[in-house]
């Protein structure tokens, strides 16, 4: 059996219930390059830059670990998603 290796496929294994509003934000005025310099460390690769160099935050894929918060406390505004939403682990 071949294993999934890409992030998209791996996240497809998990159960997510997305809330309408993002619980993650890049703080206003923060250098978008923080995505390339630090936020590559996110285990769900939630943070990406688009073609225009603007940060895209795919909060609906967040595993709620807090890595981004610790890696870039100056740039990331982190909170828990709304109760009952976000990731729900079946194994954990």
């Amino acid at each position, binding site marked *: *059996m071949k294993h999934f290796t890409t992030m998209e496929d*791996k996240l497809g294994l998990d159960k997510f219930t997305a809330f309408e509003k993002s619980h993650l934000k890049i703080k206003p005025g923060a250098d978008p390059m923080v995505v390339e310099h630090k936020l590559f460390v996110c285990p769900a690769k939630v943070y990406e830059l688009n073609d225009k160099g603007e940060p895209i935050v795919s909060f609906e894929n967040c595993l709620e*670990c807090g890595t981004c918060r*610790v890696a870039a406390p100056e740039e990331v505004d982190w*909170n828990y*998603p709304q109760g009952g939403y976000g990731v729900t*682990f079946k*194994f954990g």
Partner: protein
Amino acid sequence: MADEKFDAIVVGGGPAGLSAAYVMAKAGMQVILIERGEYCGAKNVFGGIFFTNVMKELIPDFLNDAPIERNITKRRFAFLSQDGEFGGDFKFDRFNKDFANNSFTVLRAKFDKWFSEKVEAAGAMIITGAVVDDFIMKDGRIAGVKARMEDGDLYADLVVLADGVNSLLAKKLGFHKELSPDSTIVGVKEILSLPEEKIRDRFQLNGNEGVAYEYFGYAAKGAIGSGFVYTNKDTISVGVGATIKSLLEHKLNPNDVLEHFKNHPAIRPLVRDSEQKEYSAHLIPDGGYKKLSKLYGDNVMVAGDAAGFVNATLFHEGTNLAMETGKLAGETAVESFKKKDYSAEALSLYHTKLKNSFSLRDMKQFKNSSETLDKNPQLFDKYPDMLGDLIAELFTADGEAKWPKERRLMIKLLTSENPFRLLKTAIDMRRVII
């Protein structure tokens, strides 16, 4: 619920919060526990071993119905080089008897949920699907919490914070500073399903015996970290953890480290033919004794990961420290309840109890471990291959006589690394490991 006042509010339905709530409810206190997940366990992740020494005290017959995966009878500690492994293991049949060595693999989504049912049966009220955002203050003292839900203002004499490693609430109180990248580990894990029979054969197990394999050295692609393989009933847990600082320095994403680990020649045969079931990530507070949060104040106590109670040495203990600190916070609360005194002075009993408990004593013994590892990155990049090459060469029959070969390898070792640094690393490791 708006005007109802509880004796205690517990924030977080992991092992720390559930233990605190259980002890308080058993003693007749009106307790409400608030969990942000769909159920207790829905947001909880760990490597895989639940150490049950404290569970045994709280619920002596827990083995009757607790969702245990396997009884850990064998533990292996191996050092990975780029293409090999060297290490040692132990396995004892005595671990099969009675409570064994209090080491079981569990899946937290099932286990924490089961524990929460016991806590409810003990009389505590549990609300799930609600995040606690803030405290309610009255005359400068904590009087309750604000939960993100309708009628979410809840009042109580005491708040026990067991809201996990990110504990935004303890931070709000100024009990701890932000987690630092050098002493915070991010762990990622996959659950892989395998037929029970295959797990028994592959890991040489009888019945519900299980193994815990821990991998050091070049386990995290050169970053400061380690890896693991644990057997569950019909799944295995495979994961890696590394300090955030080290991943940043090495420009590594945790999933790439996990992929590298799964494809290492020592690990690949253990995970082959399995089917992926879940991918998860979680932080581990690895700051040790020095980074513990303030533990109590007027009307508040902090327990478990929220306070920083993890023994991330060779022992890899966490769940039992969470349960112990939660239990001791609960016992302290019961004393305060009797005296109707929840002042910091009264709650200092929590600290007194901790000082006499393995939880704080172990934290103290290993107080320098994360700093020591941070200062010895050679253990994770240079040494694994240096030592691996020596062993591989020593055990290659190549016609060279043993005595000159041993002498040559010894000289090779002492020229590839400063002997004093080698010795110092060895001494440092002794303090970190055991």
